[in-house]
């Protein structure tokens, strides 16, 4: 399987994502430079974290205009798998591939720490390998991670089961105290209506190796590769 990691100027988790995809998950990875138009026939696209274009404007607001995003959008519209983490999630929201927006954290500070998230269901591309209800310890690292969507959008998302991860405590309770950034209804990760575009603020690539003493994030990558392998078989 061949995967593409998009690199914007200012991306800084690109190498971490590439490391996990290639060295931990053992798949071929190509770098997709933001000025490129060629997606190199990849089977899935990953948008890594970082500060694309410095994020001096709204996070992700400029990156969505990079030449490669045109191709990413076309790829997604044809049903291709796209996964954004942190800044990648912000860019997907800015580009309209995912609903909602990411606002400044309630405490107006950058927050980097381990938090817990819980998956809603286990039949999507990013959570099929996760035991229902299990709290995963996965770090966050962002200044603008407070998820927001207006009521109509939120209702529609709920109807379509588009909300995939909620912030919770270590016992899987979704509480206000367990919400690190003020996200609406503790939302940590969502997908589009067609369930082929995914975004989350926590960094699963930072919790996927024994050397870091935390492999909870690997369950998300396991899920993704279960899904991708199946969808390739079905082709």
């Amino acid at each position, binding site marked *: 399987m061949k995967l593409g990691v998009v690199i914007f*100027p*200012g991306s*800084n*988790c690109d*190498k*971490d994502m590439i*490391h*996990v995809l290639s060295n931990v998950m053992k798949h071929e990875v190509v770098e997709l430079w933001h000025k490129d138009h060629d997606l190199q026939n990849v089977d899935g696209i990953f948008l890594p*974290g*970082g*500060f694309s*274009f*410095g*994020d*001096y404007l709204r996070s992700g607001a400029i990156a969505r205009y990079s030449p490669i995003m045109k191709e990413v959008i076309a790829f997604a519209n044809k049903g291709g798998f796209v996964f954004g983490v942190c800044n990648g999630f912000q860019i997907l929201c800015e580009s309209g591939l995912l609903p909602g927006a990411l606002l400044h954290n309630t405490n107006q*500070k*950058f*927050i*980097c*720490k*381990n938090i817990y998230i819980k998956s809603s269901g286990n039949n999507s591309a990013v959570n099929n390998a996760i035991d229902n209800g299990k709290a995963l310890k996965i*770090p966050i*690292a962002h*200044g603008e991670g407070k998820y927001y969507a207006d009521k109509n959008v939120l209702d529609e998302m709920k109807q379509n089961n588009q909300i995939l991860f909620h912030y919770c405590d270590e016992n899987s309770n979704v509480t206000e105290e367990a919400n690190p950034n003020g996200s609406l209804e503790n939302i940590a990760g969502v997908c589009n209506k067609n369930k082929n575009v995914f975004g989350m603020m926590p*960094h699963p*690539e*930072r919790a996927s*190796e024994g*050397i*870091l*003493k*935390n492999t909870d994030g690997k369950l998300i990558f396991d899920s993704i590769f279960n899904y991708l392998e199946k969808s390739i078989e079905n082709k």
Partner: protein
Amino acid sequence: MSNRQVTIKDATKLGLTTEEYDKVLSILGRVPNYTELCLYSVMWSEHASYKNSINWLKTLPREGEQIMVEAGEENAGMVDIGDGLACVFKIESHNHPSAVEPYQGAATGVGGINRDIFTMGARPIAQLNSLRFGNIESDRTKWLLKGVVRGIADYGNAFGVPVVGGEVYFDDSYSTNPLVNAMSVGIVKEGETISAISEGVGNPVFIVGSSTGKDGIHGATFASADLHEDSADDIPSVQVGDPFQEKLLLEASLEVIKTGALVGMQDMGAAGIICSCSEMSEKGNSGMKINLDKVPLRQENMEAWEMLLSESQERMLLVGKKGRESEIEAVFDKWDLNCKIIGEVIAEDKLEYFHKGKLVAEVPASTLVLGGGAPVYDREYTEPAYYKENLKFDISQITEPNNYVEVANALLKAPNIASKKWVIEQYDTMVQTNNMNTNEPSDAGIVDVRGTDTALALTTDCNSRYVYSDPEQGASIAVAEAARNIVCSGGEPLAITNCLNFGNPYNPEAFWQFVGAIKGMGDACKRFNTPVTGGNVSFYNQTSIKGVNIPVYPTPTIGMLGLLKDKTNKMSLSFKNEDDLIYLIGETKNDISQSEYLNTWHKVRKSPVPYFNMDEELAVQDVVKKLISSKVINSAHDVSEGGIFITLLESGLTNNLGFDIKSDKNIRKDAFLFGESQSRIIVSVSKQKEKELLDIANLGNIQFNLLGKVAGSKMIIDNENFGDIKIAKEDYDTALEKLI
């Protein structure tokens, strides 16, 4: 203005002494113009020239078989870490800018130190920072702390290098002059480094990165004078940082080295273009002819001297190989960065600057730099009266507390001891997925070296109370504590970088502190075989208010690099299992000198340095190394600020494990619990492995004894309940935030 003749008055205004001005006259054989005078004033400033410190710095040990680039040779030291890899690391201060503009001051400190690392071809993989502020209850301190932390966070987080360690201390002496010391650590493959050299007549000189503006002009001079009440007027001397440009510059710089089209590269930090031109030329015994009209500018109407002195950030000076210009330009074009040829290398020892068609400055390159023509001074020093007064301290005059639980609870919430969570969580500590401490803390920051069996161990340490009390012993302790942190984490100390923060060097008592600290540091580095690979000196850390100078506590921050040859040997500081036995390796003395307890509970500032003996230190560390490499113990944590009580508490926090111990009846209970006598490490061991521990410890020439065991959720000392570990954790974690 640029070309007008100058007088001694101009020289004095720019910070040059009469003697130095005369030296300029004799070097040039004529009166300099204003531009030339500016060049000498910044290059001969304390900050750029080390004129008052260099003779003492030369006494520090610099050599060792692990050292690949020695102190002073390049922008940072380089150490062999095996596997064909080298580690480049350095610590630097940004104190004065942070005192007047904490956000930009701290941010550009982070930017500057990282450029020092990647200008050598190394990719930064870890950062640490050592911060010192005044009383946390003052509004000014809160403003400084918030600004500095946010500045470090905004710059470092976007740049994408994890913070893996550091310190935050509070003491009244830093009230208006905080210390902001930033350390960066990078890795480079042997053979992929690049030198800060200029040579080869006719080779093109490039300026790359950000455009040049009027920010930071005379920054080096600003950093070389006392802060005073009107220092806020010097805000234009503070630079403005752009981490996005820095990130692009990093990627482009590492990429351009790989083309092989470069001769040399140096970042632009203090003293801007003039510093990089002169240092690179001096190194290559050559000169440069530069056309300032080619420099990309941020604003119109900049004078030549402003361009030469500007400390605009995120810029590099490159010397390329003639004929290969297009390879260099292609890389910077990819990253959308400026890349302009501004001149060429010439044979003579001469820097010629042209502006609007006219020669505006012509000076011999070598006369500007350290080791060339820059002045070197020996300063006088005298022992201050306070030193002997401190020795008069008598522990029997200090009343023992009636209620130890009360003291313990206050101490764990003291700003110097309580968790620095409020600070650390604003930093990205996990980007690059190499921080091995995230889920299992160790005394030193442990950074995975991907693709090898090794990990780096990194720490910054300095207890300035000890150094104030006895500069020589205090600085030795700073080195010893750094080594102890590395050893407790399973590493072997390799080398240090230092950031020497002191008062005015023309004050003999402040200089006495500097001299003592250098002696103590040098002795300790020799004993640990950790050569000094570089760093920086920051004098003039004092504030004059209404004519009275208030110096900061002398603070020679030690940044130490260690190596775990086998990363699976990483030892954490946390208790693992209930009923594990707790041993103290080393001996507790009847000593509360300069402890946090004596300072904050009894409010006594005058006392000697705590007990320290280098032979005992080495023996203790040696035993703990063996206990770790033989996989005997389950945790190791060194005893530092707050004494044994705080050490036990910290070991219990991660896994919510309490302890049940007995104190030593031969010494005062406050000395046992809160004293800070040195060379002590608390370890935990399973009952099954106790005999192995005893075998190893008995072979070492050390004192050690059983304190008790890991037990339940309570902290029990001499059968008295000191509280629940979960509640203590909540207090310890939130105390600082509540004060801010």
